[in-house]
């Protein structure tokens, strides 16, 4: 911005850019922001790109969705289809379905935009999910970022809601069936279920209101919330400055990386176009949601083997895993535990996800800010908990394809369901156990390497006739990457000021023991010195 601040006395010679930036700055004072942010460091790591993938695919969703709104009509009024797609000519369907067919078959490039929208939406949700896992496994949710974790979590929920409402708009057989399932689930909720469904659908299912209502949510309310939350979320990334992995010169108190202008802008901006290009390529080559094959919604035809969009799968899977008979009439009312249990289980699961940063902070009692990302192995218990959670989710998700699993591998439906029930209940424990062992083993391996160097693969014979493998010592930079982490020890129970040991203390201590009893500390200077002496 130096051009804008140093005023030239001979205006005739000034470049257009200089003049323009001066003009703008005189009216906006934007120079302050550019000076402050333009050279900000942005730590680099491939896994930090996942959030950007989410952001960039959301931009595609916004732009392509806006294009669709110019043609899509969210009405459930019945018409006889009269567009170009011959097999459906004359078929009775809603205006919503007919206009979606028109987008696909009668508007040049319409199918392309529609497929961009759907593929980008799928990528958007996937990227958010992976981004969340990255943040979890590197401990990037620790102070001061706990609240931003919550914002990110809400975005994940909103993204799924956007996806579900969008999926329901074309009013085709699959989307109607999806709504039917939602209707059935809502009706199963005690006390408020029946009326909630009745009000949501504007009368009996399916009614003529739901597509219009979901449309308002899909293009107004939810996008507004998503955009606002993205702004806050990314704003906080700036305020907190991005975490970085440990490395030479990187301190908890600094932030090291290419400056925003120009390198980060070039790479991230370029990356944005790459993501867009990939979405465009997929949309050009692969059909998604071919509603013309499904036909309009009708409560009666069968649709075996069809699946919801991937991110809804876990909920559908949870419904399938309930054993027969979980419904009772009690106090003259129906208690549908076959619906309540999946709902509550998923509720607890996502509740734990959003609460995790606060739980871990409480156990550790660590009130410092943390800006160095953990390597997952250096937080074995957290990593193992994460693996358990992923296994639970994956089990539910696989259950959504139980029929495909059964037919594909010629298994019985019962066998598949029972195996998946076991996976969802026992699987997380196994995953926890294995992951924790693997993390501890990797930590030990790191200690080995720091103490004795890399195995060089070169064997030499000592004068005494003994064979040894030559170990390549680490340089101080490599070593720093392996030793610069913090470890925690289990909490000692101590009486408080009034000489009492509170229940909270006890619980915290037992959690703390669970988390940290298998602690492996980083190699210290003294250890390295004595280790070297002892070995060679």
């Amino acid at each position, binding site marked *: 911005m130096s051009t804008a601040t140093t005023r030239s006395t001979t205006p005739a010679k000034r470049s257009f850019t200089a003049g323009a930036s001066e003009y703008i700055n005189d009216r906006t004072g934007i120079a302050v922001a550019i000076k402050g942010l333009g*050279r*900000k460091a*942005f730590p680099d790591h491939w896994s930090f790109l996942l959030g950007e993938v989410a952001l960039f695919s959301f931009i595609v969703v916004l732009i392509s969705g806006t294009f669709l709104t110019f043609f899509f009509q969210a009405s459930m009024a019945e018409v006889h289809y009269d567009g*170009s797609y*011959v097999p459906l000519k004359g078929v009775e369907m809603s205006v919503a379905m007919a206009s979606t067919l028109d987008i696909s078959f009668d508007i*040049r*490039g319409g199918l392309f935009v529609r497929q961009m929208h759907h593929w980008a939406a799928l990528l958007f949700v996937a990227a958010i999910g992976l981004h969340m896992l990255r943040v979890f496994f590197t401990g990037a949710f620790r102070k001061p970022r706990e609240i931003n974790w919550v914002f990110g979590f809400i975005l994940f929920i909103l993204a799924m809601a956007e996806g579900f409402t969008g999926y329901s708009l074309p009013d085709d057989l699959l989307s109607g069936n999806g709504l*039917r*399932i939602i209707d*059935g689930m809502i009706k199963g909720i005690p006390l408020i279920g*029946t009326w909630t*469904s009745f*009000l949501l659908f*504007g*009368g*009996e*299912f*399916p009614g003529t209101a739901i597509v219009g209502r979901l449309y308002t949510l899909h293009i107004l309310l939810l996008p507004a919330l998503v955009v606002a939350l993205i702004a806050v979320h990314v704003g906080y990334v700036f305020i907190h400055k991005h975490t970085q992995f440990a490395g030479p*010169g990187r301190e*908890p*108190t600094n*932030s090291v*990386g*290419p*400056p925003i202008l120009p*390198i980060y802008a*070039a790479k991230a901006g*370029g990356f944005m*176009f790459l993501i867009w*290009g*990939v979405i465009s*390529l997929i*949309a*050009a080559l692969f059909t998604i949601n071919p509603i013309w094959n499904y036909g309009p*919604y*009708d*409560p*009666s035809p069968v649709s*075996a083997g069809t699946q919801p969009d991937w991110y809804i799968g876990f909920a559908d899977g949870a419904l*399938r*895993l309930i054993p*027969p008979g979980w419904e009772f009439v009690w106090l*003259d*009312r*129906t208690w549908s535990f*076959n*619906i309540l249990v999946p709902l509550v289980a998923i509720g607890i699961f996502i509740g734990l996800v959003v609460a995790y940063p606060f739980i871990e902070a409480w156990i550790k*009692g*660590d*009130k410092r*800010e943390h800006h160095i990302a953990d390597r997952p192995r250096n937080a074995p218990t957290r990593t193992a908990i994460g693996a358990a959670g992923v296994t639970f989710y994956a089990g539910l998700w696989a259950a959504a394809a139980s*029929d495909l699993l059964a037919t594909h591998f010629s298994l019985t439906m019962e066998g598949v*369901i029972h195996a998946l029930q076991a996976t969802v209940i026992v699987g997380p424990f196994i995953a926890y156990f294995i992951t924790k062992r693997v993390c501890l083993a990797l930590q030990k391996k790191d200690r080995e390497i720091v103490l004795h160097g890399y195995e060089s693969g070169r064997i030499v014979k000592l004068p005494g006739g003994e064979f040894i493998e030559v170990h390549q010592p680490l340089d101080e*930079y490599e070593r*720093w990457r392996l030793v610069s982490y*913090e470890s*925690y020890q*289990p909490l000692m129970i101590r009486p408080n000021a009034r000489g009492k040991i509170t229940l909270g203390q006890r619980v915290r201590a037992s959690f703390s023991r669970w988390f940290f009893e298998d602690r492996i500390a980083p190699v*210290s*200077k003294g250890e390295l010195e004595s280790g070297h002496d002892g070995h060679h």
Partner: protein
Amino acid sequence: MAQDDHSGTELAAADSSHAVQEFAGSTGTAVIPHDAFENPGFEPHRPRVTDEDPRREKRAQRTVYTLFYLSILGSVWAIAAYMLFPIESNDVGAVRLNNMFIGLGATLALLGIGFGAVHWGKTLMTSAESIDIRHPISGSEATQQGAVEVFRQADEESGFSRRTVIRNSLIGALLAFPLPAVVLFRGFAPQDQIPVELLSHTMWAKGTRLALDPSGVPIRAADVTIGSAFHVIPEGLIDLEHGKLEEKAKAAVLLMRLDPSELNETPDRASWSYDGIVAYSKICTHVGCPVALYEQHTHHLLCPCHQSQFDVANHCEVIFGPAKRPLPQLPIAVDDEGYLIAQSDFTEPVGPSFWERH
């Protein structure tokens, strides 16, 4: 904020000691080792090939602008494809080509810019890293005190904590004012309807003929051979002016004929079937999908949504899956002309369970 690696080393190191103090806070159960390694500082900067070899630099430059030109080509291609591949009426193949060629052009346009910019950033832009110093998010002690003081003063001047009656009445008013908005939600569904009543009845009534779905043609008992299954709707459904789908979502029925010896009918329902012909609601008692995969030799019905299975021979009892209740049975008979008719409506609500059901 230092721009350069090397000068940054000292700066960061010098700064960090005071910054560490700034960041002080309880370490909780963290172990702070006494003889931990010290940060060795930044690694010496390694130049890239493009920094050292002018020929490589030239080549990188060529690559970048070629990619940008390719992008322009892609945009032109996409526009040309829009015109060259019109959607001729009634031709699905044309739609495919239109989609693919516009899409590939756009892809080239986007990827060209993307690869070009990334390559530029990686090979040609000066590669020094920036170093920012972090400051505690909470701000300085003075700032925090200042904020506290603002609140204290505002409280003092307004008397918010002193004038408790005013405060409490305001809180009450604020809690109450959104309530009318909640009431408005009743208008989301027709004012004169009650869901439980609607859910308890379907279009079936005494004498309604069973008709084929979707044609609406009535079915003669004689046409239902053993082992066959029909998708059924009430006669007259397709002529409804309003609420066709709503009625269909409750009234859809499956009609099957078994060998009468294979039907295990309870005495009170023995008269609900006709010569081995039985009619059951098609709407799953789990969450409402159409149950319509009929396995003729086992007499099992399978719901495609969550795989609940119902045994037609035993009044559609659940034999597997998350559904609890059997599919409701529609009592049927035959009229004078030999058509199948309903004896009455279903005797219980069909479809998914709901709270008020008992």
